[in-house]
């Protein structure tokens, strides 16, 4: 290595070191003695997880703890989330509030966290074979079941239905599919034309559905595994002039879906509130740290959103009121 190269390398090195230094100082300036909770989400692209993040941040503020949001850079990437958990075990925060991108493949990582003595609150996607303080979530199967029954009833219990699945390996998608299948089985007049995955994302779902629309000139309803896909499909139907003939349902209750329901483009959705789940999950983590009681499982109530009550759901996660711990835990809210 000649001298010029060495100088160049040293300049680059000191520049990088200075950059890192600034970063670190800014990071460490924030902590200040409060307990830190590592709050995991599946990605930084889907608005659902933004809702979760805001709920968690509100809880952290209300309970005065530090919150670090941890997300894989590649959306829903299992291998990367594994590394994230390992790195955060090294950092040893007081508590993990965790959602696995795959409820089976992340088990060894969370077992490592268990071994390291970091308490874990599991939310949104239920894990087994790991020790958790509690699980906070919704009953996905029951939610999709009740929503479908409600939809089928509005159709006179007969008609042709297309099902757009989420990410087939996600436990939420599997549970929602079970709920859909159960409702279909109980309603003999309903014919399922097709069931295809839309990856929980708008563009892939719309592309699959536009082709299905060609195959099936008559579709009475489209049951989607989430709202992002449902809103896109409602748009596609409206663009094809078939909006009035087909009822679309989603799940999640994101503001876009609420607006689509208010505008008559979508039929209904169910409130699967990431905001509420994460608020309760962070609260549970803090209660555990403070040695207060936490039940083994916390299920949020199922609310179907349609034109009648949609006004309550048109606000953004920032505006949404925080859930009340005692009411949620006692199961009456």
């Amino acid at each position, binding site marked *: 290595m000649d001298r010029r190269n060495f100088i160049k390398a040293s300049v680059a090195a000191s520049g990088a070191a200075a950059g890192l*230094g600034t970063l670190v100082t800014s990071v460490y300036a924030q902590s200040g003695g409060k307990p830190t909770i590592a709050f995991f989400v599946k990605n930084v692209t889907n608005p659902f997880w933004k809702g979760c993040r805001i709920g968690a941040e509100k809880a952290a503020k209300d309970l005065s703890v530090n919150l670090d949001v941890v997300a894989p850079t590649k959306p829903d990437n299992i291998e990367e989330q594994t590394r994230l958990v390992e790195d955060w075990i090294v950092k040893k925060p007081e508590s993990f509030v965790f959602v696995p991108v795959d409820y089976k493949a992340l088990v060894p990582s969370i077992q490592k966290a268990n071994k390291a003595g970091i308490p874990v609150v599991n939310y949104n996607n239920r894990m087994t074979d790991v020790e958790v303080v509690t699980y906070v979530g919704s009953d996905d199967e029951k939610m999709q079941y009740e929503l479908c029954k409600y939809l089928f009833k509005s159709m006179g219990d007969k008609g042709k239905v297309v099902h757009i699945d989420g990410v087939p390996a996600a436990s939420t998608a599997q549970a929602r599919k079970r709920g859909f299948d159960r409702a279909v089985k109980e309603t003999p007049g309903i014919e399922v034309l097709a069931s295809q995955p839309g990856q929980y994302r708008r563009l892939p779902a719309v592309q699959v559905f536009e082709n299905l629309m060609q195959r099936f000139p008559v579709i009475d309803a489209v049951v989607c595994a989430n709202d992002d896909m449902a809103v896109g499909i409602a748009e596609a139907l409206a663009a094809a002039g078939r909006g009035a003939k087909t009822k679309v349902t989603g799940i999640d209750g994101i503001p876009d879906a609420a607006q689509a329901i208010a505008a008559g483009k979508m039929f209904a959705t169910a409130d699967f509130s990431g905001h509420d789940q994460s608020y309760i999950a962070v609260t549970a983590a803090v209660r555990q740290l403070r040695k207060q009681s936490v039940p083994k499982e916390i299920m949020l109530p199922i609310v179907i959103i349609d034109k009648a009550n949609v006004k309550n759901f048109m606000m953004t996660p920032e505006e949404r009121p925080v859930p009340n711990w005692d009411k949620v835990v006692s199961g009456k809210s």
Partner: protein
Amino acid sequence: MSAAAHPQLIARSTARARNAPGALYLLATMVVALTLFTPDFFSVANLTNVLLQVAVLTIVALGMTLVILTEGIDLSLGPVLGLCGVAASMIVVAGYPLPVAIVAALAIGSAFGLLNGSLVAIAGMPPFIVTLGAFGIAQSLATVLTGGNSVTPLPEYYRWFNAGVFLGIPVPIWATIVLFGLTWLLLYRTKFGRYVFAIGGNKQALKLAGTRVSLYHVLVYVYAGALTAVASFIMTARMNAAHPTIGVGIEFDAIAAVILGGTSFEKGRGSIAGTVVGALAVGVLRNGLNLLGVSAEWQVAIVGVVIIGAVALDSLRGFNT
């Protein structure tokens, strides 16, 4: 024809760069900076953690180095990793003994290598397209076999591939060391290795000289596929589950590690030692950003800048050109 017929050609091609690649400066800088600025970085626990995290990437990147040395590329290694993991796990879950699963995984990895290698070396198709096609096929097979779900539950012994310890060192690190040694021997001590450098250095001349070149060229892809199959066991054991899309994206990370390590896309220049440095640099960068608590959004952009920056450093100072 024999390799000895082209002593000059091969001698020139195997002449390795004496300088260190930019990734080495990057790695050194990061280690120093992270040690100074985070209390968690420089500990046996965390350094072991980083080595475990980069084991799979390093093994895949070793094979990728050989492919890139022949002026090729293999985009299919990521999905092939997923497919091997899924197939081996299904075999074990179905009650067959582990050796059957190992043979099956190696066979699948090698078969994809054979497909890629034949189409590239014998049919003369562009490696990018060939392996992109294989990417789609491997990805489809893995998802169709599993319906998109993880394969579980695996027998308890499977975890040994990740969590096992021998002489105080975890199995994935042993695997990396052993496979590095094997690849080093193949590359620098056998006729196969001399051909690898020569194919990248001057394919046209070799092609005129004989047909055995094509055989060695195919073997390069087969070797990369087989290494990927080995890596799939570590990956599966890490998750204690085999997931069909687990490998997707690793191929690009591996290519980045190879290029960061100073191997050139052209002219058959580079080294596997550089690749190990490149993979470590990627691993330390990601670990460091996490330890520093940099948000995912910014991490994405920073990774891009670092990749471009390190390679630019190499090319601007005339490294390997």
